[in-house]
């Protein structure tokens, strides 16, 4: 019982302290005025943001975040009872909150002010590099394991039918592994080679070791500073590596036109943090004196062009290449050599496709996320002679569609 009394007197002390704050200044009329001001400030803040947030017209697509923001959910008794309506409404209010971009930026400034150099899995590196860094768990997940098995099995199967030197797997490490020379002191990131090597050891000849190719160039511009992609130059270095030991005459640098497409590219990493950054430059590589015919998504668009210029006006400038991620692009070159290449890829391949296509009669570029046909059937039907699987290792380890290769 004694314990309790002490407890209560403790509490009273806190209360006293709290109330002291009021009474101390209460001697004049100040206390009352202070209270009124605090109440007014609070009420004004609440009403201000409430009213603006209710009146502000909804934004559909967020340019900076590159996604469609949540819209007002439809009300129904069913969704209400399941609790779906209410949670959708909560997300809607958050997504449509006024000055969304500015709030996100403010939050990230606060993190920087707290001395953090890793914000939302983005490492703030030297030389204006912002490098996305994913933890080990991404690469040790079930999906990562399934995808590993799928690609090993797939490549083994087609080495048998198409022959060695006709199947290759290129798993590109991202900047978190290659550009660790740009890290500030003490920074660490998961070394993706742990995962890549565990796949490579089972792939044998078909594996294209991009890390060893890119690492010596780590002081050059091989990855964007504000985007998760590699630059066209980085992709070209990997291309040269790919041609080694294969029956292919590489397209040399002096037979390529390099066109600087834009110098104010701010990529996905920039969107994530929404703080001011140095812009990136996008360069396009076009093999000189070769002309192509491209057929996007089975006749949806037929053109001679590998790019869609409309994307240069928006935020998502990397989608300039191939106009995003079409499910299937069927490319016909002017050579008649009966060589037909299938590239199964993510967006890392988009910038360098023209160079690969330059030495094949037909090139088929497939994105498994947006193309449903079974790959075995496809290879059979189109008489594919060469296969290249090209992913950045991060999207490879987390992609839900890679398992379709099995």
């Amino acid at each position, binding site marked *: 019982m004694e314990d309790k009394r002490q407890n209560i007197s403790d509490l009273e002390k806190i209360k006293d302290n709290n109330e002291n704050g009021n009474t101390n200044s209460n001697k004049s009329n100040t206390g009352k005025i202070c*209270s009124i001001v605090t109440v007014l400030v609070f009420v004004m803040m609440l*009403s201000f943001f409430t009213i603006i947030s209710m009146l502000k017209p909804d934004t559909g697509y967020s340019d900076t975040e590159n996604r469609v923001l949540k819209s007002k959910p439809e009300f129904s008794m069913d969704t209400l009872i399941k609790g779906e309506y209410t949670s959708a409404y909560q997300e809607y209010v958050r997504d449509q909150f006024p000055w969304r971009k500015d709030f*996100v930026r403010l939050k990230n400034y606060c993190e920087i002010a707290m001395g953090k150099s890793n914000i939302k899995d983005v490492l703030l590196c030297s030389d204006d590099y912002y490098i996305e860094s994913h933890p080990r768990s991404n690469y040790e997940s079930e999906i990562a394991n399934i995808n590993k098995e799928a690609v090993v099995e797939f490549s083994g199967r087609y080495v048998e039918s198409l022959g060695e030197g006709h199947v290759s797997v290129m798993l590109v490490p991202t900047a978190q592994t290659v550009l660790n020379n740009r890290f500030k002191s003490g920074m660490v990131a998961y070394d993706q080679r742990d995962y890549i090597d565990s796949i490579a050891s089972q792939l044998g000849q078909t594996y294209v070791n991009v890390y060893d190719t890119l690492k010596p160039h780590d002081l050059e511009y091989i990855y964007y500073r504000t985007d998760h992609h590699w630059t066209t130059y980085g992709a070209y270095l990997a291309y040269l590596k790919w041609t080694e030991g294969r029956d292919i005459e590489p397209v040399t640098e002096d037979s390529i036109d390099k066109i600087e497409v834009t110098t104010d590219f701010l990529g996905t990493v920039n969107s994530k943090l929404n703080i001011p950054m140095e812009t990136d430059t996008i360069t396009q590589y076009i093999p000189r004196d070769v002309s192509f015919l491209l057929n996007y998504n089975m006749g949806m668009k037929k053109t001679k062009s590998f790019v869609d210029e409309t994307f240069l006006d928006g935020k998502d400038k990397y989608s300039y290449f191939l106009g995003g991620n079409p499910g299937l692009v069927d490319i016909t070159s002017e050579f008649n050599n009966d060589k037909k290449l299938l590239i199964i890829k993510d967006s890392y391949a988009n910038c360098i496709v023209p160079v690969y296509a330059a030495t094949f009669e037909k090139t088929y570029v497939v994105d498994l996320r947006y193309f449903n046909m079974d790959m075995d059937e496809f290879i059979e039907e189109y008489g594919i002679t060469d296969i290249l699987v090209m992913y950045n290792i991060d999207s490879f380890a987390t992609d839900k569609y890679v398992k379709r290769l099995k």
Partner: protein
Amino acid sequence: MVFSDLLFLFRFLPIILLIYFVTPHKFRNAVLFFTSLVFYGWGEPIYVLLMLFSTFVDFLHGKMVYKYKQQGNNKKAKIFVASSVIINLSLLGFFKYTDFFIASLNNTFGLSIGFLNIALPIGISFYTFQTMSYTLDIYMNDQVPQNNIISFGTYVAMFPQLIAGPIVQYKSVAKELVERHENFDDFAYGVKRFILGFGKKILLANNVGAIWSSIKDTGGQDMSVLLAWTGILCFSLQIYYDFSGYSDMAIGLGRMFGFKFPENFNYPYTSKSITDFWRRWHISLSTWFKEYVYIPLGGNRKGIARQIFNIFIVWTLTGIWHGANTNFLLWGVYFAILLIIEKVFLLKILDKCYEPARILYTFFLVVIGWVIFEFESLSGISTYLGYMFGVSGCEISNEYSWYVVVNNMILIFIAFLGATSIPKRLYWKISNVITFKGSGYIKMIVNNIGFIVIFIIGMAYLVDGSYNPFLYFRF
């Protein structure tokens, strides 16, 4: 709905405040009651009926207990108290502990009874404890029952304390339910308290929580002693700031509406013994158990053996109150044992010790307790303790652990400092030194700017959709 959400701040709260203060005093309880139902129903559209049921049952029971007590028929009064307690505990038992009970049966007897997979109604442990305190107060402490069911409903459902406490005993708000005087001073105090709690939750708890959540996911390869300690310290800070932040917000909101809720935390991490810790941590819960279980069981009045038994019972219940899982039971028993040891001899020795050593001793044991609290399985607990004490052969420290520490140093330091009374004492010291003419207004401006800054930055974290967990879904 939770307080740390944009929907609450910029839809629900302003609308409630508006309706509440334009309504005449007579109907304000009704406003609070019905808006609270919306608040609760937003997250639990079905279980709101359960809460209404509980409210109704206890309202009737309270009346019956009082009636028979007035008539001097203690026996009948007792029956109704028992019935109320049984109904409340059955609700709690059914919704919270059935699957745990089935699992235990299955384990012990090798059975395979199917689980019911009942979703736990949010806040059920809080409101059933509140409604029980009502009939118990009428019986034990001569409390007069509430005649108006809306007013009683307001007490049970009141949204500020509904989902995460503090557990408000009926007697402490009985007067305010009938007559309260909302005023600027109380409202202003409520605003400050709410914003401080909001800051604790959003800026401190969530951020140290994010560190813990990533460390918890770290596999054995990257683990080290340093990282394991950093992790569990972050969790210790997270649960303190999260819980006390919620309590602050609840107390603040209550004060805006004219209610004075009891304090729930008193710098628990500066406790000088485990006994002291439980007087400073979740005070409203320990008070509840003390008044309605410990003392009726005889407390410390029936000899040391009985007292030890009572402590054991109370802390086993405290443990299991936190969730239907073996680890919570263990966690309760762990503290029961520590408290008994202290009671029997350790407190006398501690009393003679150097104060910082006592604080360190207490904090260390509490942190070990959090490991038991946080990992559901025995293997999880022992693996993590293995990391912390380097038994599992992991390194003392490595590159990664230093990176995590350096990257979050400032945050962790601020969080530690804020868990002591140092910032507050410093504030008052400075505030009391500055006393020239008109200094009151300058302090006012500085204070208000401080609160605005906390609020706006907190909003920024909410808009960003940063890590924002609700920790009490199992309570």
